[in-house]
C-alpha cells in the first residue's frame, strides 16, 4: 500500500473555498460548488454502475456548506445549503479530486 497522505489542517479559506493542507505539504483549495458536484453518495452516484446521477446543472452556483464535521479518522461530512446531507467525502477522494493545475494535469494524463 502506498504511503497515504492525511490532512494536517482543514479550514474555510474564503467565502466559497475549503482548504486542506496535507501531510506531504500539498495544499488543496476546493471551490465549494465543485465539492457539491463531486459528491459520491448513493443518490449522486449509481452504486452499481458508478455513473453520476447528479447532473452538474442541478447544483446551484450559490450552494454552500452549512457545517462540516469530521467522520472518524477518514472522511468529512458536509451538510449543504440545498438540503443535501448524505455525502461523506473520504480523504482519499478529496485528494484524488484536488483541483490544482498540477493534480488536474496528472488526472488528464493517461494512466500507465
Amino acid at each position, binding site marked *: *500500500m502506498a504511503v497515504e497522505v*492525511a490532512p*494536517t489542517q*482543514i479550514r474555510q479559506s474564503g467565502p466559497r473555498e475549503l482548504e486542506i493542507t496535507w501531510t506531504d505539504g500539498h495544499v488543496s483549495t476546493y471551490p465549494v460548488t465543485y465539492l457539491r458536484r463531486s459528491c459520491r453518495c448513493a443518490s449522486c452516484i449509481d452504486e452499481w454502475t458508478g455513473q453520476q446521477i447528479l447532473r452538474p446543472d442541478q447544483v446551484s452556483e450559490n450552494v454552500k*456548506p452549512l*457545517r462540516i464535521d*469530521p467522520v*472518524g479518522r*477518514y472522511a468529512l461530512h458536509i451538510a449543504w445549503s440545498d438540503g443535501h446531507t448524505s455525502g461523506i467525502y473520504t*480523504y482519499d477522494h478529496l485528494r484524488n479530486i484536488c483541483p490544482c493545475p498540477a493534480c488536474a494535469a496528472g488526472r488528464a494524463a493517461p494512466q500507465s
Partner: protein
Amino acid sequence: MFGRSKKAVEEAAVLAVLKTVEDPDLHRDIVSLGFVKDLKIDGGSVAFKVELTTPACPVKEQLKAECERKVRELPGVEDVVVEMTAQVRRMHEPTGPVLQGVKNIIAVASGKGGVGKSTTAANLALGLRQSGATVGLLDADVYGPSMALMMGAEGRPDVTAERKLVPIMAHGVKIISMGFLSGPNTPVIWRGPMVHGLLQQFLKDVEWGTLDYLVIDLPPGTGDAQLSISQAITLSGAVIVTTPQDVSLLDARKGLLMFRQLRVPVLGIVENMSYFVCPHCGERTEIFRHGGGKKASEELGVPFLGEIPIDPAVTPGGDRGIPIVVEHPESPAAKAFAAFAKQVAAQLSVLAESAAAKLPHAPIMPGPIEWK
C-alpha cells in the same frame, strides 16, 4: 556523616549513563524521551522516577533493572532507588464533546464469530487494569451482548441528573453493555439505524469519566456497528482476533482491510485458540495448526500481538463472571492474555510517539466547521 568526605555523585554523570538506556519499543533513550523525573542525589544515594508511557509496558522490569545496574556502577554510588511510574499518552483526539476524558480507544474486532473476541476483549481490559491503568469496556456487540455475564457485572446502570448512564464497575473496570438494558431472555432484534442510534448513545450518553483506555468489543464481521463506531469517534487503533484456521484468517484480512479504508490504525493481530497445553504433562498440541496469525500479520505488515492457548479454565471462568486473568493469573492462557495486553499498550505508545513527531501542532480539526 562519613559519606560527606567522598566526592558527591554528579547529576550529569547519572543522566549520562541513563542516556544509554533505550526504550526498545520507541527506539530512543529514556532521557531524551523525558522519562527520567525527580532525580535526587544525596551523597552516595541516588533516587529517581522513570515515567513510562503506559503502566502496561512489557519491558518495565527489564528497564528498571537496567537503570539500577548502570547507575550503581558509577563511582561513589552506594544506593539506587528507581520508581517506575506511568503517564499514559493520548492517542485519541476527540473531534467533539464525546469521550473527552478518554486517552485511548481500542476496538477489538474479528472477521467472523466464534473466535473468542469477547473473551479477548474482557481479558485485554483486565490485563490493562491489572497493570494500574484506568479502563472502560464498551460491549458494542448489541446483538449478542455477553460482557455482563463474562465480567460478572449485574444490575441496571444508574442514571445521573444530566441523564447519563453510569457504567457498572466489575473487577475494577467500568462496563456498559446492551446486556444491562435487555434481559437475558430477550433476543435483541435491531435494524441498522437502531444499532447506530444505540451505539451513539453508548458513546455520548455514558458517564465514562477519565480513562487511560476504553476497550470496545465490536460485533463480528464488517457491517453497520463497525462503521457506525469508526465514523462517530476517532478510534486510536484496532486489534484483530483470529484463530489459526485459514477461513478465520481470510476473515481477519477483511476486517483489517476495512479498518485500513477507515484509516483506523491496526495495532496488530492476536491468535486465539492457538494451541493446547496438557494440564498433566505440559505437552503442547496444535489443534488447529499453528502460526497462521503470525504469518497473516507478516503478510499484511501489522504487528503480531501474541498467541493465546486453549485453556479449559477460560470458559468456566467466563461463564461465572471471573475472567481467567483474575481467576488463574498464573495459568498459561492468563499469562498469554497479560502479555498481549502489554503488547497492545506498547503499540499505542509507539503510535502516540510517532503521531506527536509527525504532527506537533493542534489537531487537524478540533471540531466542526460552521461555514461563514
